[in-house]
């Protein structure tokens, strides 16, 4: 286990270097001039002001030198200063709790609703509940989730008044449930289909027949003998959906006005605030890598047959 961890952590180093460089290069290679966008869309910046800004943010050196500056700062835990003179780390500190709350709420909804519907569809395969889940998932996947989000705001927020339309004033869970539900719609169909397939496969396995033959209860067979082995692909799937989920927060936090990392990334992109975009994207990549590691370790816990070394 320890050897596995060390090996995985070592392989993460080139991945981290590569991804941060790609993010950095992509952000600063974006078409458009950050100095121009600082001045506002239709205004001319004076050359002296432009020069001052460029040297302040190292925009006047080559991409590699800029990246070097950034990386050395990053290693010291310094995410740099954004174009409004605010340390990016303070933006991250302010946005982090919001995004974690949103992501975890979403994840729980995805996991519970996805596996629940998947098991239901598998047990009633070919009958109405199965077809309903299939039809529902197709419908959900067909509608872009930001459309769902705007509609949900109007229906559940404005007309019915069940949830606040936007903002985090009402705190967790009220402010987070509606955005989390909209975001969860991205992953629920996938998780449900995968669960259905895995459960169906295991339902026909010999050890399930054995369990039934020795007289175990229906629920017990389903949970302990069918669902548990089926969880392996589901857990890795849930790990992977975190990636889509984190990128989904950019739109959802914008629409619901939640001041999280996604909101700040969106604003950073809009205002050409490179340091913010790079800082937060880097953090998200690190989180994603970490979650993948946790998922790999979880395999062992779920399935004792798997050996990591």
């Amino acid at each position, binding site marked *: 286990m320890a050897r596995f961890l060390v090996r995985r952590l070592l392989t993460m180093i080139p991945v981290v270097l590569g991804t941060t460089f790609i993010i950095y290069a992509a952000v600063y290679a974006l078409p458009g001039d950050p100095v121009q966008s600082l001045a506002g869309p239709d205004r001319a910046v004076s050359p002296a002001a432009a020069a001052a800004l460029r040297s302040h943010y190292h925009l006047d050196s080559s991409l590699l030198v800029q990246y070097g500056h950034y990386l050395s700062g990053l290693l010291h835990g310094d995410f740099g200063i954004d174009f409004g003179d605010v340390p990016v780390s303070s933006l991250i500190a302010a946005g982090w709790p919001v995004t974690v709350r949103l992501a975890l709420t979403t994840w729980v909804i995805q996991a519970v609703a996805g596996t629940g519907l998947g098991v239901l569809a598998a047990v009633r395969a070919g009958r109405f509940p199965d077809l309903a889940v299939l039809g529902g998932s197709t419908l959900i996947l067909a509608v872009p989730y930001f459309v769902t989000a705007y509609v949900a705001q109007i229906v559940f927020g404005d007309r019915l008044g069940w949830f606040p*339309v936007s903002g985090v004033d009402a705190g967790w869970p009220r402010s987070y449930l509606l955005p989390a539900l909209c975001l969860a719609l991205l992953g629920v169909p996938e998780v449900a289909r995968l669960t259905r397939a895995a459960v169906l496969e295991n339902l026909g396995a010999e050890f399930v027949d054995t369990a039934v033959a020795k007289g175990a209860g229906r629920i017990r067979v389903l*949970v302990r003998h069918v669902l548990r082995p089926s969880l392996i692909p589901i857990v890795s799937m849930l790990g992977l959906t975190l990636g889509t989920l984190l990128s989904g927060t950019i739109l959802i936090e914008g*629409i619901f006005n939640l001041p999280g990392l996604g909101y700040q990334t969106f604003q950073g992109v809009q205002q050409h605030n490179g340091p913010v975009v790079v800082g937060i994207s880097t953090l998200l990549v690190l989180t994603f890598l970490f979650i993948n590691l946790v998922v790999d370790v979880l395999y062992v816990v779920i399935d004792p047959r798997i050996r990591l070394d």
Partner: protein
Amino acid sequence: MFPVLRRRKGVRAAAAGAALSVLAALTGCGADGVGRAAPGPDGGSFSIGVPAWYVAHLTPGRAGKSSVADAIWTPLTRIDDRGRAVGAVAQSVRSSDLRHWTIELRHGWTFHNGEPVTARSFADAWNAAAYGPNAMPYGYLFSDIQGYTDLNPLKGKPKRTTLSGVRAVDAHTLKVTLSRPLSVFPYTLTSTVFAPMPKTAFKDLAGFDRLPIGNGPYEVAAPGIKPGVQQLTLRRYDGYAGPEGSAARITVKSYQDDATAFTSFQSGAVDVALASGSRLAQARRTDADDVALSTAGGVVYLGFPLWDKRFRDRRVRQAFSLAINRHAVTRSLLQGLASPAAGIAPDTVTGGGQRACADCRYDPTRARRLLSEAGGWHGRLTLWTQADPAMQTVLEAVLNQLRTNLGITSITLEAQPTDQLYPNLSAHKADGPFLLYMGASYPALYAQAQQLFTTGSGTNTTGYRSGTFTSLLDRAAAARTTPRITALTRRAERTALDDLPLAPLYHPVTGAVHGPDLTGVHLDFLGDVQLARISVR
């Protein structure tokens, strides 16, 4: 075996508990009380939803013009209801030659920390805003003041830190020397960019930007702007020397998405929200009493790339302008929320509203004839605009009209973010007409004419140059009376629009929606809500 069973029960209990708490959250809700208008003997409070950039910066030289900046800062002059520049902090703004100005300040004005507003406060603030290395986005507005180029040299570091043209003679007298005569100088002073700053500002400009101490009707309550906090509280300043604000407290909530701000307003989370396009049209149909409208002091125009030889012939530009049915665009597409333009400024701006452009009407027959006289159109045509859904929709309508009325078959659209589009235009890389909006930086026709048509202006997108225009505008700048300034600027406008470097299309209407318990919601010449005039019933 048993522990497993127990664990399962535990899980079920937890799930039930979670479901219950969700139910409780669902049923136990009313509208969240935050930001509901509340009347009171002190004037009460209300909340307004604004775009996030309104509260991105609060220093005069960084913030630009917005409802929030207007509430925090009071500059030397203001625009009265008849569109004239009158004194605010200034008692008088006088000049005998329109180059050397003497500004007398009124007594009794103070900053929110009690410090008196003096001529020094203005001089210091202007120096800081104009000083290149401070990189204040609106510093360019000081470019008419003598010494601006010393603070913003084309190369290298500036040698001076103060504008040589600005001098505080005593506590209440400010002398300003401009680099050229400028009759509309009192108008330019209405911008909050020319507001004063207290001494404490210059110790930490970045910190001051987030929690400024202004001299306007409202002060910013601590902590000001903070990362992750989307709300700013304004408190009425009781020591204000001008007309006092009505409400005691204003909560400013920032929204990244205009649609969200509007839905939040509908659900009652904010009392006022800005609106435009289909949302404004919808609000006007359902709740006309609670909608405030104003024709923005700007113009949406189709600019021609004069550097492109296909557009050198004036007849081609005329043909394009005559082929566009402005009434159809404003009436059907924009649902009446715009007025067709035949000039660069509407009548809400001093000097605007005249029919300056002879070719700004709809005459497809004449358009086709002019185009064929000019040799017809050959090949592809690309139309450019900024990446904005509303502008793109309008440009699609323009495309269809050009196709139908001029018979140009191969037309494509190119939408770019503004920070990409403007550099492309100034580098002459755009190869077709472009749809853009230009708003007046102060409510005078002169501002629009200067921004759109003078050589060297950052917003002269078409690359227009004309000796006749320049001399007329220079004469307007040197004219002594307002009627004379207006007459000369109008002649300059007509001259430019005769050459037709751009075809004005329409003046957009902007609006705000508000709850029934608010009165006095007015929009100014750029469509900003005047916060101090809103009262709560």
